[in-house]
């Protein structure tokens, strides 16, 4: 574990230095991310100037859903950014290089890049989550907070499972470079409470592509609107998805016959 932390730290420092060396581009990306966060936040606040609730949720509750979506999404991007280059890593022969190193090739691929711009975006999101909690004192207690944190971590675990599955498919097929972007785009459906969607879409977003489990369930648990059955289902789902994706990864590695180098 200590070895992996040291490797991750080295990679993180190198990534940070790279981002500093291209400071203009990095500032542009960071500003873009902050603008997106700021404008959506303003949008939610603005629509609540004209309505009292959104599917029964107040302004603070809707903001909590939006921030939870950002929290899961940003943390996943911060730590698993390397998967975005999965196909390139395979095609350019870097995977061969990872395979002979004394570290898990999956770890090297997933954590090969640490996007510190997401770290800087995470700070205002965490601050806003804290402020939102203070606007919902009637829900704030040890258990609601405990389940919220647990389900956010569970959401990040599901995100990891999806990233691992994408990496496995990239190794297996040497194609599908766009798969991770499709996931990212579908993930934006979790920006608002899942209750706004029709029952068919809700079903898909809970069971088929579990975006609701990742982004809406933590906020629903905090607000006391998620039954124990669904909480247990979330944990079961993440365990199943992690097992499945790791199985897929191992199978992909067995099938891998070296592409380049």
């Amino acid at each position, binding site marked *: 574990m200590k070895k992996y932390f040291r490797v991750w730290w080295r990679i993180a420092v190198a990534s940070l230095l790279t981002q500093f060396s291209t400071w203009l581009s990095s500032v542009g990306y960071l500003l873009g991310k902050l603008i997106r966060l700021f*404008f959506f936040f303003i949008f939610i606040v603005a629509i609540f100037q004209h309505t009292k609730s959104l599917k029964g949720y107040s302004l603070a509750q809707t903001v909590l859903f939006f921030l939870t979506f950002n929290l899961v999404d940003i943390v996943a991007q911060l730590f698993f950014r390397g998967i975005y280059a999965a196909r390139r890593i395979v095609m350019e022969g870097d995977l061969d290089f990872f395979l002979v190193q004394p570290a898990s090739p999956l770890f090297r691929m997933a954590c090969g890049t640490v996007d510190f711009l997401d770290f800087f975006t995470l700070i205002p999101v965490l601050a806003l989550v804290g402020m939102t909690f203070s606007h919902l004192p009637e829900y704030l207690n040890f258990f609601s907070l405990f389940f919220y944190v647990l389900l956010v971590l569970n959401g990040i675990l599901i995100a990891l499972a999806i990233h691992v599955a994408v990496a496995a498919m990239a190794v297996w097929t040497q194609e599908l470079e766009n798969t991770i972007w499709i996931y990212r*785009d579908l993930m934006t459906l979790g920006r*608002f409470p899942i209750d706004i969607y029709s029952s068919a879409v809700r079903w898909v977003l809970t069971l088929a592509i579990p975006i609701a489990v990742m982004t809406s369930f933590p906020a629903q648990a905090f607000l006391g609107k998620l039954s124990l059955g669904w909480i247990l289902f979330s944990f079961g789902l993440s365990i199943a998805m992690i097992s499945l994706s790791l199985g897929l990864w191992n199978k992909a590695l067995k099938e891998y016959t070296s592409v380049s180098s």
Partner: protein
Amino acid sequence: MKKYFYVFSLSLQQAMQHRASLLMDRVRSVALLLSLYFLWSALMQNQDSFLGYSRTQMLSYVLCMNLLRAFVLSTHAWDMVGEISSGRISSYLLRPIRYFGFCLARDFSQKVVFLGSALLEVFLLLWCLRATVYFPGSWRSVFFFFVAVWGAFFMYFFLAFLVSSLAFWTSESAGPLFCFELLLQFTAGVFFPLDVLPPYVQGWLHVLPFPYLIYFPLSIYLEKLPLSSILHGFMMQGVWMVILGWVAAGVWRKGLRVYMAEGG
């Protein structure tokens, strides 16, 4: 003119060749379309109107926004950045073709493909959700709408060309371009009608060119503007088109002077 038609035709074939990239771009649009459609449906569930929009008008705003976004805001500007940074643009400069016209023809091909795809998405959504669309009551509104869309088309082309030309001075223009695109989409009315914002913010935004790209044509389509506001909007589009076209051409000329064909 014929050679620009060939550029258009070749770019069209190229866009159809890269089907995975096309699919990815459209998944993004469909995700946005679905989330906004259901958000506004939920907001208008218990009320007949919101911010002066009837339910049909608001949902039509979202659906038509998808079409306008595909037609107005699709561009090959990122390719131009890559061509300048890598020096590939040298080969275009040596050809008997104007790069400006080349980009226009290339952009137009992408717009045709994206618009075709967006039309399909909207029809599918309409069919699945049994939704109704608002149609303008007069042909005058339809005519003004199409004029505004073409105005927006050229405004955005000049804007994208101008921002992409930054690549002549720095190889790091990808970040600023990303930031610019997001800012533009929010202030153009892609994510929400600008009426949602407080009046003083709307006042500031209407001095900028962005609301005339999406929000203005859609407001004409939904017949929310009186004739005087429509004419004022056309005047603003015209003024911005001239300014942006003039600045883009000037920056391009200056850029060519500092261009050193690095890597070319």
